[in-house]
């Protein structure tokens, strides 16, 4: 396969990604040379035991962290050496995030939480609100748009978080243990939303430690001790 073909087929490519943490004299190697390829439109689960390096890998490919070594390409763009300003801009336009603890801004209502990245992209507030309401309705929260996060249940907060992550139609949706803090009913709902998004062609990279959710994806990447042991 030629490089050009690879660029168009794989939305994420990494080669030799290593991540080490230094604490005084002690160096901990969390990722030990990760070579990874994820296709456009793929729903991938990164799984492994606690400490295997799954979240660390997600942070590297989602531009939230810098690898110690290695190359990362996202949508054909070499992101490893990007300046922080460029990374912020790239994350805003191309990526969406769903965090384990929802990570909503407590001073903003559900609608405002979803609208902020849209306003940052240059949309008028009224237009951003319109989109936010539409997306919140899509995740089943059309009746809760004006509620502050503190007035929402965990499952509802996670759905707001998903709405915020997808409102600007990102190329990749990253989810770090999105169901870890949810009951089974809410978890199933979140997974259902992910599957619907995937059906529409959304690329999703999800970290999870639950096999059941892994089975719902196209592919499971298993990590152990900082290395991919099975794909």
């Amino acid at each position, binding site marked *: 396969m030629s490089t050009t073909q690879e660029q168009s087929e794989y939305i994420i490519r990494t080669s030799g990604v290593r991540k080490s943490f230094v604490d005084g004299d002690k160096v901990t190697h969390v990722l030990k040379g990760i070579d990874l390829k994820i296709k456009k439109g793929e729903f991938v689960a990164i799984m492994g035991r606690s400490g295997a390096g799954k979240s660390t890998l997600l942070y590297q490919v989602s531009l*939230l962290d810098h690898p110690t070594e290695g190359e990362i390409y996202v949508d054909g763009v070499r992101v490893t050496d990007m300046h922080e300003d460029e990374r912020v801009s790239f*994350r805003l336009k191309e990526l969406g995030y769903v965090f384990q603890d929802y*990570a909503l*801004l407590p001073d903003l209502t559900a609608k405002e939480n979803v609208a902020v*990245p849209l306003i940052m992209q240059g949309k008028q507030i009224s237009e951003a609100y319109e989109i936010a309401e539409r997306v919140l309705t899509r995740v089943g929260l059309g009746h809760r748009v004006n509620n502050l996060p503190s007035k929402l249940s965990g499952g509802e907060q996670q759905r707001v978080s998903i709405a915020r992550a997808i409102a600007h139609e990102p190329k990749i949706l990253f989810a770090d243990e999105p169901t870890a803090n949810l009951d089974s009913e809410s978890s199933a709902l979140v997974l259902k939303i992910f599957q619907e998004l995937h059906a529409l062609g959304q690329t999703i990279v999800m970290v999870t430690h639950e096999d059941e959710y892994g089975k719902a994806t196209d592919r499971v990447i298993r990590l152990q001790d900082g290395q991919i042991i099975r794909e």
Partner: protein
Amino acid sequence: MHALKRKSNIYRVGFFLAYRQIKRASLWTTMLIIAVMTLTFLNLVVVNGVLVGLIQSSIQAQKERGTGDIIVTKLQQKNQIERSGEILSVLEGLDSVKHISAKYIGSGILNADYRRKLRQDESPNKVGATVVGINPVHEDLITGVSKYVIEGAYLQENDTDGVVIGANLLYKYTPIETAGFQTLKDIKIGQKLKLNIGDNAKEVIVRGVIKSKVDENDFRVFMLDREARKLIGRTDSNVDEISVRLKPGATEADAQYTKQFLLNNGFEEFAKIQTSVEAQPKFLKDIAATFGILGNLIGSIGLAVASITIFIVIFVNALTRRKFIGIMKGIGIHPKSIEFSYILQSIFYAVIGSSIGLAVLYGFLVPFVDAHPINFPFSDGIIYAPLVGTMMRVVLLLITTVIAGYIPARMIVKRNTLDAILGR
């Protein structure tokens, strides 16, 4: 164009975040921060205002109770104001002039022990004083001196024997005894004293005591102009001092204009003509300058306190929201938007605090203290807070606040995004 739009987005989001953070912040916390800012602003303006006002009120009193708007005095080498009559006629003909008081002035000695024989080792109860002959009505119109009679009564137009004594000449009000500073002891209203000016003497009766906190009054003895003229031995119509009050609302520029008119008439050859500002004693000007510096120094400390307060408020606020700042950066909110939101919050606290401070200052404190001056020993203290100076302090407070708000926000925002999100 793209860069401009990007900048506009940064500020729009900053405003969006700031507005909502302020709107949804705890009411008590917001009120507390605003109260701190209000008090800081008042500390900045009022401390300086009281210090400068202490002297400013003396300067004001000097003009209102002493010199008038213009004071005409004799030249140093002369014994009187020559051509006084001409000067008075010209002044009386000016539209801008409201009242005139012509005075005779002589150095005299007031003696309370003139009726009894003193022992050899006994000092007489007497004091040297400036004796001023006035028309009581004219003088009162210029200086309002009758309001400052603290004992007895003011001079009457036909009271040929009466005198009113300045409080600084009486031990009862100025209990100082040094070799160079004498005062009269145990003087009562109605008591007779002997007044000597040169070789002339007259028995006078104490009618009242004046305490106006202006040396021109409090170190003087007032009597009828015609009686003083006789005692001084003046044979012509010249006087020694003329105080002029211009029409209400007259400014220093108006006083300068009137002065210039007198100078243009050639009167500077016969008299020293000064506006009240020019006639201010040098020590008052020096103290005013010194207190100004002191006020600015204390104001600077107030400003430092204000900036530290805002710094702490914003730092604690940003620190407790560190995780959310990380999340915002994570989802692509530009760091400058976040910093701008904190700057806007600082400005909000400073503007509201200053506005309340301004309302308290000009709506209550200044008028209240004007109506009820602080009773300092040598002046009636007011709060001197001219609007221009106060607004400059508001701007200074705003600039300091913006810097004090930006620095902690920057410190937190520039931290590693992932560390902030994960609370590391």
